[in-house]
């Protein structure tokens, strides 16, 4: 298939998709809209984690930390002075913050940039580590970020969190960011740099012997991943209207890990599908946490049951289906058309099989 045809198909799909979003935004009820928006944010977060964990093969578990940095940065930048005064009633706010009131777009970008900067600082020591050690170190740093947030009250308002953040994130913001991220990832992964990342994933020693600067490329991947995590966090804050330290525990990282593992480590389209699947399932499974009245018996709701189910799902996937949904493969236009062709041929064949005996009779 020609490159231009594929690009046109992609463009058409994106336009169609945003048209659907437009109508969804108009006619869906608010609850469903929030889920749809969450799907878009989770696409960004899933791709962010897949970049460093799936494509580069560096097992990093610091996502919640970078999201927190992005969410707090954007929240502080967008909250108007009155709202800030309302939030900081227990301790005084750091004065320079008071008058900041940026447009949402810039605040989100800044959230990403500050998270990227944290990624850079943390990356210097931890990216020299391998495998399990890297996972433990990044996990530790994420927790450090959270503890700092709880304690630097003039900047973050501590454990109380921030409330009444302007709610700006809607389906267009979330999916706009998602589509841009997908585009960025496709471009990066298919470039020479993407190849270098994959070579590190495949065999670090060989990659280095072939002239790939390990530290530089791991840092590139880690910083970009942190940036996207920060953007995701900023969008999440702008959707929920509140941020607080309890939002950014390991559970958050775990959810994203689930998306990436289910979708396939090292597959862009896999992460997109995984993000939508996990987000919807996570909402749908709220049923198991709410009390059920069967008329004759009442089953009380079990909080945390969703996580039990999801953990179980993750374990099952890791044991029986390590590849996840797509493995390292991608859903491409060629793939889709080949599939359609196969289906069509099967139909034709079946029709022929039916027509053969009748012609013999005639």
């Amino acid at each position: 298939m020609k490159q231009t045809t594929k690009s046109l198909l992609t463009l058409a799909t994106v336009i169609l998709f945003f048209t659907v979003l437009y109508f969804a935004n108009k006619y869906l009820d608010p609850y469903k809209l929030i889920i749809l928006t969450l799907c878009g944010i989770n696409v960004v977060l899933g791709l962010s984690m897949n970049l460093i964990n799936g494509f580069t093969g560096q097992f990093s578990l610091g996502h919640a930390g970078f999201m927190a940095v992005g969410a707090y940065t954007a929240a502080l930048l967008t909250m108007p002075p009155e709202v800030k005064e309302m939030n900081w009633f227990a301790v005084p706010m750091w004065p320079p913050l008071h008058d900041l009131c940026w447009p949402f777009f810039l605040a989100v970008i800044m959230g990403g940039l500050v998270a990227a900067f944290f990624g850079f600082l943390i990356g210097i020591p931890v990216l020299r580590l391998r495998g399990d050690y890297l996972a433990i170190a990044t996990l530790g740093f994420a927790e450090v970020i959270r503890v700092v947030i709880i304690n630097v009250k003039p900047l973050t308002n501590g454990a109380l969190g921030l409330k009444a953040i302007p709610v700006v994130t809607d389906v267009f913001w979330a999916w706009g960011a998602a589509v841009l991220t997908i585009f960025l990832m496709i471009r990066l992964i298919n470039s020479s740099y993407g190849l270098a990342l994959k070579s590190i994933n495949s065999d670090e020693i060989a990659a280095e012997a072939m002239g790939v600067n390990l530290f530089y490329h791991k840092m590139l991947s880690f910083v970009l991943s942190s940036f996207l995590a920060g953007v995701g966090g900023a969008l999440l804050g702008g959707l929920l209207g509140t941020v607080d330290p309890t939002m950014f525990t390991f559970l958050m990282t775990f959810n994203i890990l689930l998306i990436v593992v289910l979708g396939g480590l090292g597959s862009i389209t896999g992460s997109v599908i995984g993000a939508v699947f996990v987000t919807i399932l996570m909402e749908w499974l709220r049923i198991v946490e709410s009390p059920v009245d069967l008329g004759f018996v009442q089953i009380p709701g079990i909080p945390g049951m969703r996580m039990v189910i999801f953990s179980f799902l993750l374990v099952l996937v890791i044991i029986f289906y390590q590849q996840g949904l797509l493995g390292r493969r991608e859903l491409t236009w060629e793939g889709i058309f080949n599939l359609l062709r196969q289906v069509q041929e099967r139909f034709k064949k079946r029709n022929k099989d039916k027509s053969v005996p009748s012609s013999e009779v005639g």
Partner: protein
Amino acid sequence: MAPLFQANNLVMQFGGLTAVNKVSMSIEKGEIVGLIGPNGAGKTTVFNIITGVYRPTSGSLIFNGRNITGLRPDQVAKLGIARTFQNIRLFRDLTVQENVEIGYHLRIHSGPWRAVLRTPKYVAEEKMIKERASQLLAQVGLVEYRHEKAGALPYGAQRRLEIARALATNPRLLLLDEPAAGMNPNEGLELMAFLREIRKQFDLTILLIEHDMRVVMGICERIYVLDYGTLIAEGTPEQIQKNPKVIQAYLGVDDSVRD
């Protein structure tokens, strides 16, 4: 003319074990030099020191008039020393073409942003990489496998691909760690012809570790012999074959060499 490569008094200690002991060698441009010795003699360790995987306990490395001691492997590769590994280390889950393309990555000038934005400069560089990679694969006779995963190739083709991948970095000195391992005599002969061919085409200097004595004696112009980390002999294949110390090290029995 100064030699292309020089190692001066290399020492490598792992805890109490001295794997390489005061090894000095010198290689002229265009030579094919052999590095032989019984199992565990320290040959691969010498390669690892040259390519920056290990920093020598003492001693220095001069390449192309430059002191390269203590540089990182990617820096060494960039300066023009490429290698293959004793146990093949291909990027197994990437295609043959991609394996070779990675070798060109270190010559890319456009930064990651240009790559993502696909600026004309980057696009031109990428086009060149793809063309060169295809050309190189054609030269080494692997073009038919281009789109296959490297890990799915037959063993001989994998060995060849590893050499092709090293060639993609545009080396001046090529280090081959047992390129004939696991090959039958016929494949060994093919390999010799192949090495001579690429030396000419790519203007290479080659240092090779090899246990297969037909290959070593057939292709090397000069040979260094290592035993227990120490150089015990140096000379032409004829001199080495007659050297009593070498015969002693190999217990005088040619067949035991391959074990």
